[in-house]
């Protein structure tokens, strides 16, 4: 009797094991197929990318771009005189706008009028007026216009040595 139960248990276990193995095997096959498919897709994509890169290389070829430029645009090569360094930029003009001001244009006019009233005989307003001046403007109230662009002198000039004969 016990032997018979054991037999049935073993048969049941066998069937279960077989079913399990079958499932694993089936899943593995599905995964392997998916893998192969993905690999194939990756390869296809890579090939496509390579073809597109090659095409981009052809489109981006300087000779082609230059030919197109000559046909359709009127560009000229950049001359050395067209370059300049940031040091040669004029200083930023003083900021007439007060932050948080409700009437920015009025503030500007007010600010612009101020220096006109300062002459040799009319002294600039007392220090009490000073806080009204925006922080970026000069505190003495004269507030000159932005300085003109000054060209920096050449880096090394030593005229004393110019007399040397080559």
């Amino acid at each position, binding site marked *: 009797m016990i032997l018979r139960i054991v037999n049935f248990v073993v048969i049941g276990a066998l069937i279960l094991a077989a079913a399990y193995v079958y499932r694993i095997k089936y899943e593995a096959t599905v995964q392997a197929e998916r893998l192969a498919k993905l690999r194939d897709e990756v390869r296809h994509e890579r090939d496509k990318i390579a073809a597109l890169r090659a095409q981009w290389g052809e489109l981006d070829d300087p000779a082609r771009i230059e030919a197109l430029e000559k046909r359709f645009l009127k560009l000229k090569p950049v001359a050395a005189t067209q370059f300049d360094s940031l040091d040669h930029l004029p200083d930023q003009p003083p900021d007439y706008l007060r932050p948080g001001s409700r009437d920015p244009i009025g503030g500007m006019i007010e600010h612009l009028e101020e220096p006109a009233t300062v002459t040799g005989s009319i002294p600039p307003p007392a220090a009490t007026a000073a806080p009204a001046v925006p922080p970026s403007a000069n505190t003495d109230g004269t507030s000159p216009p932005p300085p003109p662009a000054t060209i920096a002198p050449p880096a090394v000039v030593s005229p004393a*040595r110019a007399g040397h004969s080559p």
Partner: protein
Amino acid sequence: MSAVADPLPGVPTEPWLRRLKRSLLYGRNVDRSAKARARVGLAIAGFIAVYGVIALRLVMFGIVADSRAPHRVIVDDAVATARPDILDRNGEILATDVRVPSLYGEPRHIIDVDEAVELLTADLPDLDATELRERLSSKRGFVWLKRDITPAQQKEIYRQGIPGIGFLNENKRDYPNGPEVSHLIGLVNIDNQGIAGMEKWLDNHGLAALHMAGLATDRSQQPVVLSVDLRVQHALRDELVAAREQFHALAAAGLILNVNTGEIVALVSEPDYDPNDPRQANDPSRINRLTTGVYEMGSTFKAFTLAMALDSGKVTLNSSFDARAPLHMGRFLIHDFEAQHRVLTVPEIFTYSSNIGAARMALLLGSDAQRAFLKKMGQLDRLRTELPESAEPILPRRWSDLTTATVAFGHGLSVAPLQAVMGVAAIMNGGTLIPPTFLKRSRAEAEALGKRVIKPETSELMRYLMRLNVEKGTARKADVPGYYIGGKTGTADKVINGRYSKSKVLTDFMAIMPADHPRYLLLIMLDEPKATPETHGFTTSGWNAVPVGGKVVSRIAPLLGIEPRMDLPPADQLILASLKESR
């Protein structure tokens, strides 16, 4: 129960005929039930054996099928091997692989050769019918029918459904820039093996071994980054093509070298070829003149002579040499092209490009010193770079005084132009000889490779002379304002049938920019430029190579990130003065 009970009484009742049969078949006294049981057992064993075999085979198929599938993919892929992409220094593509279908046949599987030939020639009209028939009738397992067909053709042939005909995707090398960088990267053959230029270098550096092992099938190989800048290369080539046309020159070549790292930023040798069309590459007139050709460089060699003289300490800028009359050397006479008929100082020798002065200077130092110096500068040995093509310099057989005098102004010694550029770069960059390279290289790497050959002060003096030559010497036409170019011209009479030709010349121009803080060295070389109305009948370098050099500089300097500086003082104030201050 009746069945058991019957036989006992029924034994005699069995008909005699049946009894006879039984005794004949089984013998007397045989128990038939035992026999039957044995037979059933045998049948069971048989079935177990058969099903066992089937089960075993199933297991085997299960295992083998997995290991076989990827194997086939490799076979499909390994036909034309993948190569890494080649990029320029900014990552622009110079060479890449694309997949193209190729047509093959398996003659053993072809049923009707005539039909196959007919259908294939209909789709691919450029196939030769008799050759195709021959190939398909052969006994071989695999024959190529046509490499590199279009996808449309592939589709058409696929639709015909000819048995024994198939397609393989192959890697094909594609050079999107056409002839732009031809001599530099070289090309590959139909099996994607490098046969020239950097492509060959790739093969010699491990790729061929990878191909042999069948491992180079993947696209994911690291791209190779070259030192060349495609935009600079194009600008240089564009100007050289125009110059070659303008001066009706046999050839035009140009090179741009970063003097601080030894990187070759551009290399053009016109006429060149389109690497997508390999047939052009075999034409001997399309060789790479900068590495494969050797030339007498002419007056640019005076840079070596003056550097040697100044570096030795025996000659200073204020020394002077007699150039009043042509120099007699045995039966030869050395002339000046722009004869001044007076005593010339060292800077004047350079700016008037005086052969007599240079020859006297070399003679003062002696031929041994000259030979040792040129050897140190790498001018007497074959220069090897990544490019497989290189040429041995042609040395004079006997280094006599006459040789010393002529080599001083660049005649009698033929070197590869790249070699001369390397030497001049060493004179310019502060005195370090750095082997040129086509691969990207950092400054630290270059310094580790570099070898000091002259004193830094000599280099500074030489840069002063180069700049002076542009300000008031033979290279005035190359002065692009803002870039502070220094340069030396050279015009060499060509040797035709063992004699110096009077009319055929090779002109070259070497320019350093900027002369005060050297970064790039430019070489322009024209082979047999003809005189044109604009050059007033002259064929010397100052009329052809120099203006071309100026044009190239104004185009490439913004690309190379050289900041223009206007209103710089002349060389004797800027370079010479700073040199004296540092002393």
